[in-house]
């Protein structure tokens, strides 16, 4: 890295080298059995340079390729984006619990055992059930070195499990997905298993439902879909470019006063916990919405400069192949007071929605959430009685969050990179195929 910086600084006025090295071992179960064990080792370098006021980016996964890495970045900088910001210098960094030395040393056979026991737990639920699981451990190192004097690195671990169930009876398909992760090996897998079993059991009986405006309970999984437009619109890039409907709403009421949304990359043992963001800005817990008021946007260096604000540590880098983007790392919604059981009891006729398919594909800037209810359950007189099929969920997420929220549950589900409660909504448009 030092050599890359040195080479770059001979030709440019500023430079930033980013390195990522990851080893992950996913153990894959498909169709009720262990199918594949993988080891993926990847490492690479990314370079951003500022030359004559313009920015160039290059990356490589080829070892010993430092010179062409620098030459590529310099060559494209001639036509690049105007460099509007400086790379940050060294700062005080938080201490984050995101590394567990027992994760890299977990034997592969232990991952196999975890997956095997999940498959064995699920299979007896139905003779035609097809279960799959992915159990994965990984260790990642990231390092940033720049010409402003910053040189920082972190090592983090991850352990996660993802479970899927397919149950086909004639032309009736039931698909159930769930998962959890942590940076630490002491991860409780019981809640995921319980949720999957419950969904498979409830999902086997289809129950008719009528089109109309209904009371809907969103599970924490579905509730995440509901926040997608808001997250898209607090993205600093959309704000900076002026087409976010939230662009002038800092300090204004954008949600129901009971909504508190934080993005917390410091949350101990969460899967995306990090000491610094993709540009080397110290991570911090960011209030996004408090008492329904918009508090902050997600900002990287560029968006922060354009808006004359401070960066929020929200630059995201998933690989070396693209420059930093902007996004959340660990979203958390504060719980409410209503126990889930009581929430369900209070619904006379409605749905418990767990998974919306295609909800991401509408016009998110307009708040449009239109999705097929891939997994949803009918609530009749306070009881969950079976599955609702062939139905479309249609709502404007901004309206829902500001005026259609009835209750937040006391319980929350921790998926490893988000923590959400159940949400009871009113007046949601459901269109059912007759």
């Amino acid at each position: 890295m030092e050599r890359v910086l040195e080479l770059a600084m001979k030709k440019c006025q500023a430079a930033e080298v980013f390195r990522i090295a990851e080893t992950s071992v996913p153990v894959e179960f498909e169709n009720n059995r262990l199918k594949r064990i993988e080891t993926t080792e990847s490492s690479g370098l990314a370079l951003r340079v500022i030359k004559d006021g313009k920015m160039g980016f290059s990356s490589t996964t080829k070892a010993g390729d430092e010179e062409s890495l620098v030459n590529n970045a310099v060559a494209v900088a001639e036509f690049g984006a105007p460099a509007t910001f400086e790379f940050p210098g060294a700062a005080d960094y938080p201490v984050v619990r995101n590394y567990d030395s027992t994760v890299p040393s977990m034997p592969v056979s232990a991952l196999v055992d975890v997956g095997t026991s999940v498959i064995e737990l699920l299979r007896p639920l139905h003779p035609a059930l097809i279960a799959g699981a992915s159990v994965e451990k990984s260790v990642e190192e990231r390092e940033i070195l720049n010409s402003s004097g910053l040189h920082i690195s972190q090592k983090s671990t991850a352990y996660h499990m993802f479970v899927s169930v397919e149950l086909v009876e004639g032309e009736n398909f039931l698909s159930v997905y769930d998962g959890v992760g942590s940076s630490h090996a002491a991860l409780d897998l019981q809640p995921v298993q319980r949720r999957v079993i419950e969904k498979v059991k409830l999902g086997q009986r289809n129950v008719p439902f009528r089109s109309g405006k209904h009371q809907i309970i969103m599970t924490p999984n579905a509730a995440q879909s509901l926040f997608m437009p808001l997250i898209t619109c607090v993205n600093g890039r959309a704000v900076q470019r002026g087409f976010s409907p939230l662009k002038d709403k800092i300090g204004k009421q954008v949600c129901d006063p009971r909504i508190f949304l934080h993005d917390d990359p410091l949350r101990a043992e969460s899967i995306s916990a990090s000491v610094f963001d993709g540009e080397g800005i110290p991570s911090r817990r960011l209030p996004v919405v408090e008492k329904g008021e918009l508090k902050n946007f997600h900002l990287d260096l560029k968006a922060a400069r354009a808006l004359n604000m401070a960066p929020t540590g929200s630059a995201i880098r998933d690989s070396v192949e693209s420059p930093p983007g902007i996004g959340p790392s660990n979203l958390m919604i504060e719980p409410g007071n209503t126990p889930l059981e009581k929430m369900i009891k209070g619904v006379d006729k409605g749905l418990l929605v767990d998974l919306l398919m295609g909800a991401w594909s509408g016009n998110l800037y307009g708040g449009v959430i239109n999705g097929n209810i891939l997994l949803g359950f009918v609530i009749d007189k306070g009881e969950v009685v079976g599955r609702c099929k062939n139905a479309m969920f249609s709502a404007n997420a901004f309206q829902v969050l500001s005026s259609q929220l009835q209750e937040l549950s006391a319980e929350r589900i921790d998926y490893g990179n988000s923590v959400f409660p159940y949400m009871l909504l009113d007046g949601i448009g459901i269109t059912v195929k007759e």
Partner: protein
Amino acid sequence: MKELLTAAVTRKPADYVEVRVEESVVTDITYRGKDIDNLGQSVRFGGNARALVNGGWGFVSFNSLDALDRKVDQAINQAKLVSSHTSEKSVLAPVPVVVASVPLDVTTDARDVPLARKKEVLDGYNSIILDYGKNVTSSSISYFDHYRKLYFANSEGTYVEQERMDVAGSIIAIATRGADTQQGRAGFGSTRDWNAILGLDKHVLDACDVASQMLDAPPVTGGQYTVVLDPFLAGVFAHEAFGHLSEADNVYENPELQKVMVLGRRFGRPELSIYDSGLDEGARGYLLYDDEGVKTEKTYLIKEGLLVGRLHSRATAGKMRERPTGNARAQDYRYAPIVRMRNTSIEKGQSSFEDMVKDVRLGVYAIQTYGGQTNGEMFTFSAGQGYMIRDGKVAELVRDVNLTGNVFQTLQDIDMVGADFCTHEMAGGCGKADQGPLPTSEWAPHIRIKNVVVGGSR
């Protein structure tokens, strides 16, 4: 390279071993509004080894070819560990041993086009959007060109080298008024000719028109409609609603699904034929050999309404005792190949657009797409924009048109297929099992479907 890879897979204690290596160069250009947001050039180098032992797979990926032998051994050891937990046998459908080299066959190579020229063309489109007015306030342009050299060797003696080019992009006009934001889109893509990027002025202007007009368009009223899909959306429908269901990795170890997907069963009316092909030159889904070194083909999935085929890797074809089709594809060297589509198309029919619309009292004409998704049985996708059809005529513009349905029922409800088959390409691609976006194509004519659920908050 040939000697290195061939030696690494020969005489190994496994039922099957393969090694893939990839070297690629990507140029990325993105605009966000008037300025370039990113201009980058990336080199990707890496490889993987995959081994099969008694029905168990091992897979190792890496960035360096040093100690390649040890990496192959590691894959074999992982495969052995898997096989110790299962009583399966290794079954791979037999394919001819191939030794082939596929050099780049393009009319204009993106690497020969100076960066200044690429930028000039994109600047032109960006200016069209930013000069348009009428509430069109911003733009979003993504362009990439991707050159790849792929090497493949397996323990059966197959060795394939392939060079490929993929150029694609999307050009989005963004209109804003108050808190309302709407988009209109144009796109392009080619594996043969960089010049596919040229001559899109009219499409970009159309995208501006759409973005601007959508600000005044009401959301569609939810309900069940007769829907006419434009060729873009019809292609995405074929991909989402039927292509994924045809991927044999869902079917080959699921007896219940095999009962549903019986070859010869009627899935649609005689007007409907759907195929998936690797042979369409220029298409982003063009592919001569797949990532198992299997020659691709044109595979009919539905012919005149009957199920006649499905998409296979060697493992799925072997287990189902069917013919391998060359559909094993990997996103890049970090992934094992899985069953994927290439160019999934609805074959040309006989109806004119006027015929499709003329007897529809109340319907929706859905155009372009933001994307879609499926679980096999249900599909959903959103249109870029829609028009109501009233009393046999295309009427007012509506927005937030999202379609959903049951795959089996909806295929049977396709009652007209247009004679206006057209080829078209977009940026983006297909995502499956964490691998994406994989370049695919979706060609089609207009089609008409009865009784489609259109979501709407009204």
